[in-house]
């Protein structure tokens, strides 16, 4: 990778200046102050200025992913509306790369544009009450019936399910083979009869997530993503991208939770003690280390593909957020014990920076569970990065049907 620009697969040179010029040209012919917001975003997609590393015709230019911020910043500087990426993170971060990699041409054309513009929100139907870390043990069944599949089961920890038009769904199509081999990946129509969404209240008092009950839900075979029985392999694309999405946002120094803590420290000399000072400085160092590691990872990604290094960033981020939010409550003392209110809110995004220290302390507990527990991430690092042997397993050569449950 060169430091100044890069060459795409079609040999065309893309650099920051050239992309800024493309955005300027686009804005000259599309006036966002008069155009309908969705029409504007559709036009941006069609001009290849949505996710520039995607192929031409699918919202991209086949350009280096590292240059995406140049395009986003150019649109933001002009005051153009964006696609509210935080609202559609699951679609952008997980569904889209999976559809791009494993979908048919027809599926890519149908789903990617409204996904990117935010017209259609996506959610993820993976985890189940009895399949968390051991995702491949999931029990939701998909049974072929003519040109359809009939789905029955229960999913859990589904954020955005109450808002979603589509879901990525992992279901068991063959219970008579070992568990990893009997899975198939589907796109689930969340408006189909038999899909029922219920809020799941969490320790913060909010209901950010849902339980989703699937009862005789019929999906046409055209909504299958990848081959029958190949669901586990397809899901790996989703999961690798999930970890990058969770740990991967670029931030300036003191841009995250450390910034809140540092500001409080500077404004409140009365709260300072030597022990808290030591912990604060350790966490400032840790936050910078995590931030720079994320930056280095993004430079690696710009040159290639997401790899298991994303697991390290996600793991560090979880530990750091928990230590920071715990220190904040302790620093504030009795003031740190005040929450805003415990009313069940249907929040659809996590905002660590706007709410109370109580919220931050409690919500951070989820960081080491969601998107792969810290224990599973350590296994992934140990096995895939360091090449250490697996623990002996009793569930590899046994048909899923015969496993103890």
């Amino acid at each position, binding site marked *: 990778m060169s430091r100044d620009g890069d060459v795409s697969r079609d040999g065309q040179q893309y650099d920051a200046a050239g992309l800024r010029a493309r955005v300027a040209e686009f804005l000259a012919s599309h006036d966002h102050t008069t155009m309908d917001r969705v029409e504007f975003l559709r036009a941006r997609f069609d001009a290849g200025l949505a996710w520039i590393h995607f192929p031409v015709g699918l919202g991209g230019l086949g350009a280096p992913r590292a240059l995406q911020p140049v395009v986003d910043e150019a649109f933001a500087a002009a005051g153009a509306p964006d696609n509210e990426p935080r609202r559609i993170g699951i679609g952008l971060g997980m569904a889209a790369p999976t559809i791009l990699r494993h979908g048919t041409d027809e599926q890519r054309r149908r789903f990617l544009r409204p996904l990117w513009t935010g017209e259609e929100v996506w959610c993820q139907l993976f985890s189940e009450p009895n399949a968390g870390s051991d995702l491949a043990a999931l029990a939701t069944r998909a049974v072929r019936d003519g040109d359809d599949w009939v789905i029955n089961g229960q999913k859990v920890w589904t954020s955005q399910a109450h808002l979603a038009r589509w879901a990525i769904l992992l279901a068991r199509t063959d219970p008579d083979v070992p568990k990893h081999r009997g899975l198939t990946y589907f796109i689930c129509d969340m408006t189909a009869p038999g899909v029922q969404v219920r809020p799941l209240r969490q320790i913060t008092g909010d209901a950010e997530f849902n339980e989703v009950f699937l009862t005789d839900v019929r999906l046409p075979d055209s909504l299958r993503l990848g081959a029958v029985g190949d669901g586990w392999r397809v899901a790996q694309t989703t999961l690798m991208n999930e970890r990058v999405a969770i740990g991967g946002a670029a931030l300036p120094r003191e841009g995250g939770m450390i910034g809140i803590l*540092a500001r409080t420290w500077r404004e409140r000399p009365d709260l300072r003690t030597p022990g808290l000072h030591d912990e604060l*400085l350790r966490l*400032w*160092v840790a936050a910078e280390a995590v931030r*720079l590691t994320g930056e280095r990872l993004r430079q690696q990604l710009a040159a290639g593909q997401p790899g298991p290094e994303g697991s*390290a960033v996600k793991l560090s981020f979880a530990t750091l957020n928990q230590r920071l939010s715990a220190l904040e409550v302790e620093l504030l003392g009795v003031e740190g014990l005040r929450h805003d209110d415990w009313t069940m809110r249907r929040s659809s995004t996590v905002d660590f920076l706007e709410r109370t220290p109580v919220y931050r302390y409690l919500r951070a507990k989820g960081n080491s569970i969601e998107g792969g527990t810290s*224990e599973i991430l350590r*296994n992934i690092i140990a096995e895939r990065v360091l090449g250490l*042997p697996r623990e002996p397993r009793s569930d590899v050569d046994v048909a899923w049907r015969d496993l103890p449950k």
Partner: protein
Amino acid sequence: MKHLLDTPLEADLRAGVRAMLADRCPPQRVLARVESDEAYDRALWHTLAVEMGLAGLLIPERHGGAGAGLREAAVVCEELGRAVAPVPYLGSAVVATAVLVAVHDEAALDAEDAALLRDLAAGTRVAALAVPYSTPPFAASMPVVASVTDGSVTGTVRGVADALGADVLLVPAADGLYAVDADAPGVERVAVASLDLTRPLCDLVLRGAPGRLVAHGPAAAAAVTAGLTAGAALLAAEQVGLAQWCLDSTVEYVRGRYQFGRPVGSFQALKHRLADVWVGLTQARAVAGYAAACLADNDPDTPVAVALAQAHCAGVAVTAAEECVQMHGGIGFTWEHPAHLYLKRAKADAIGFGTADRHRAGLAELVDLPGAGR
């Protein structure tokens, strides 16, 4: 943002140094020579400094150096750390050289200094900054270790690194920085039985030794700070290399060591700890890379970047070495296995150029996070 990955040139340099060290400096050979009387491995130094020409990376081309930079020197330091190589690269080619280069950024070069820089670049002379190894780069004033009367330098410095085999000592005194020939009358070096066998310390006693003024006043203090800053930044690269060897050798060992009918590396109790070492190392690589990149660009964020690197990397290297000893079990506690060389270097490096705690205290000032009662 700084480029935190190797450039193609840096990758080539890394591969070249690594291949040479694999051939000339395997751990068993380092182990075999640690109790010799030689202060450092002179044959290895000759290959690294003279044949490969790597002692002059920080020296401008007009003074006989390579005119490369801190990023390249950081690559060399990382590889030397990985091999726990017993050569005075950090003390001479980084710290003492950075001091002299800083002096001559400010002032004209006289004939003797020009000759010294040329010899340092060629690797034919070795220099050391005569301060305790624990001296951090952010002291309020220059660490004065000697007094000078009519060009005669007198003083005692305890715990100096890379000075035992040095030809020239750079001695900070009240009125400036002096160069003292190490074999001049009035210079005594007493070897310390040091924790780190591969970078032994010495106590330096100067009794009216003849000194030559290299810089005086603020220029001398600035030059010493520049040397210590380069040392602290590149020590972080060395710590990355140390930690990488410890992790690699431990992973290899636990994959092949069978107990209870399976490799001990298949037990989660070990896997998770090794994963944590890898995470710390991945962070250390980013943080050390950022420090070297800032220094190379003369970036105003350099003091923060260097304090950050020293606050983070020392602990990573020590933990990696301690886990290496522990996970090797009994063999890791023997003299015959090289793990102890790495443990000793890692622990000594945690003191070098100031402890992590001192660097955190430095950061408190730099980033405005004052302590209690302030």
